């Protein structure tokens, strides 16, 4: 699809970036010490911290990935919304207050509170880095996806811009600027998603009487693109892909519904028929690859039920391994949130346990509200007539475009700050892990306050650069799927130790180290050997994969718990 950048969009985009950077420089002076840099001196008001939780958590995967998945396949994307939110219950009821009580700057602090062991710092520091980098990839991919239509720049340029801006935010004022950027982004995202939802309901559904035709994209061996048999372009004799996303039939033979209520929206769609698109690839003898996108009239009742997305089809089949795969994903989402290092460090920015608790409740309110809206936005995009058949991640911004240019510009700029907010949190978590946990372990030297901050800043630049490279390499992956992996690794590596430390007196430092290492390596290994990675990353046949299903959580989370208990019992007897 060819996008034309609009002046308005570019202006609003740069305004947002300008405000973000201005804020960082303004706050720079407040983050000179390590307490300021890593934890904003514990002085962030609980309400601000709560909204910042939403800003931190509602990543590109939530906004772009989930909306895109719902827009292309229906209800299944909403399963992610449900799982992501459910994870916050674990965070609030089990983790929030002890995290604040036990730790200081990083997640390793809390796990190490009873032991003062360099081994724990090393293992947890490494797992923090692994999870954060895994989580960074989809965010950076999302950034590239956004900048393409917004500024008319290629994917890599978007990734580079985000990387550079985030590095500046994190280096100038650490947790102070990160928190305020996340607060700003969290509020804007929730408010404008609500605006978009109201507009979707006001617009209602309208039948498109034309018959949708299949579309083809051919990439020739010399790299040029042929669209529907003509060279790609906007001039005469050239073609670009037609936008898709139409309703083919409404209940009672109506042609348009007019404004709809919150419930009526679903009950109408349930009895309608929508055109969805499937794709298939063929390779010709000369090496050119053609992707054919075919329309498929689909009943609304099918769109609004789980099990239609290729990744979730298994729940309607007979294969037990496919059902396990689904259970495993839902378990990882449930357990993952409370194990994400960049979320956990936010508990150190408030003054006490009560503030930690209150800010989590505010966070759940904002995040839950947003996730309810994802279903309206996804289905609104599905029927907007403005979708790019080749790119599900663009569904939400293009939905806005179908309403008005101004809204498109604002939503795109917000989506961009979404990436900024989450990436800053992730880079800060990584920098904390390196400067506060890892460097001390390796060198054995106790760093001064300023040295810690300096190392954290250097690490931020390095991690930012790595994120840029990975974001360019992984351009083609759907962002919400990758985040599912990050959750699996976080839940397997971190949750067993955290939970057992809180509820079992018999935990030993050897137990924690073993559980973190086993949880992290087993879940990472499982992912690398899974069918999804085989087909999406290595380009190998999925059936050659060595593990029976793709999502590791259901095996590796219990494995982490078992390792912790066994090793703790063994090492305690020795002592």
């Amino acid at each position: 699809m060819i996008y034309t950048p609009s002046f308005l969009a570019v202006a609003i985009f740069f305004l947002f970036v300008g405000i973000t950077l201005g804020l960082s420089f303004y706050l720079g002076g407040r983050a000179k010490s390590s307490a300021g840099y890593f934890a904003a001196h514990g002085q962030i008001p609980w309400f601000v911290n709560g909204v910042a939780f939403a800003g931190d958590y509602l990543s590109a995967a939530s906004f772009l990935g989930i909306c895109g998945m719902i827009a292309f396949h229906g209800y299944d994307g909403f399963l992610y919304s449900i799982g992501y939110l459910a994870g916050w219950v674990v965070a609030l009821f089990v983790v929030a207050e002890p995290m604040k009580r036990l730790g200081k700057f990083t997640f390793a602090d809390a796990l190490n509170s009873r032991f003062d062991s360099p081994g724990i710092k090393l293992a947890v520091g490494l797992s923090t880095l692994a999870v954060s980098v895994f989580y960074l990839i989809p965010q950076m991919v999302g950034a590239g996806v956004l900048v393409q239509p917004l500024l008319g720049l290629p994917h890599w340029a978007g990734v580079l811009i985000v990387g550079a801006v985030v590095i500046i935010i994190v280096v100038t004022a650490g947790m102070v600027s990160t928190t305020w950027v996340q607060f700003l982004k969290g509020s804007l995202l929730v408010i404008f998603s609500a605006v978009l939802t109201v507009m979707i309901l006001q617009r209602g559904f309208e039948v498109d009487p034309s018959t949708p035709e299949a579309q083809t994209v051919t990439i020739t061996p010399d790299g040029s693109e042929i669209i529907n048999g003509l060279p790609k372009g906007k001039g005469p004799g050239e073609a670009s892909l037609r936008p898709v996303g139409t309703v083919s039939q409404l209940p009672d033979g109506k042609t348009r519904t007019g404004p709809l209520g919150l419930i009526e929206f679903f009950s109408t769609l349930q009895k309608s028929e929508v055109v969805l698109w499937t794709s298939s690839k063929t390779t010709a003898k000369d090496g050119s690859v053609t992707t054919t996108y075919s329309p498929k009239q689909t009943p609304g009742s099918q769109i609004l039920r789980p099990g239609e997305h290729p990744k979730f089809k298994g729940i309607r089949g007979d294969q037990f391994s496919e059902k396990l795969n689904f259970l495993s994903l839902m378990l990882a989402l449930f357990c993952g949130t409370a194990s994400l290092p960049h979320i956990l460090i936010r508990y150190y920015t408030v003054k006490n346990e009560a503030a930690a608790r209150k800010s989590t409740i505010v966070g759940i309110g904002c995040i839950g509200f947003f996730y309810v809206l994802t279903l309206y936005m996804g289905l609104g995009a599905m029927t907007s007539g403005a979708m790019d058949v080749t790119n599900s991640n663009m569904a939400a911004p293009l939905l806005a475009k179908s309403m008005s240019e101004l809204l498109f510009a604002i939503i795109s700029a917000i989506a961009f700050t979404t990436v900024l907010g989450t990436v800053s949190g992730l880079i800060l978590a990584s920098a904390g892990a390196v400067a506060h946990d890892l460097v001390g372990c390796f060198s054995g030297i106790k760093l001064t306050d300023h040295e810690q901050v300096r190392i954290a800043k250097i690490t931020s630049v390095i991690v930012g650069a790595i994120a840029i490279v990975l974001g360019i390499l992984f351009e083609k992956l759907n962002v919400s799927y990758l985040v599912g992996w990050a959750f699996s690794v976080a839940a397997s590596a971190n949750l067993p130790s955290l939970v057992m430390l809180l509820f079992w007196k018999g935990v030993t430092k050897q137990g924690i180290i073993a559980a973190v290492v086993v949880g992290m390596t087993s879940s990472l290994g499982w992912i690398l050997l899974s069918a999804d990675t085989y087909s999406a990353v290595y380009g190998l046949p999925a059936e050659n994969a060595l593990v029976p299903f793709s999502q590791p959580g259901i095996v590796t989370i219990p494995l982490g718990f078992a390792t912790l208990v066994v090793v703790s019992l063994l090492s305690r007897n020795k002592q």
Partner: protein
Amino acid sequence: MTRNSRIGLVLFFLYLLLYGGFVLLNTFWPSTMDSTPFAGVNLAIWYGFGLILAAFVLALVYGFLCRTAEDER
């Protein structure tokens, strides 16, 4: 274990039952999600929205029950 963590655990298990029920229904009896129990909207949507609302309501209940002397100061 503190009073707050006891309350937290009870609410956690309550939510786990709700979430676990949803996940198991989807996994082993997915066709139950197609039924439209109320207002022409299917169970998948009602249960999904219900889970999100339940998380928020339980969070508020927890916040209310955990008001401590420290908060009131």
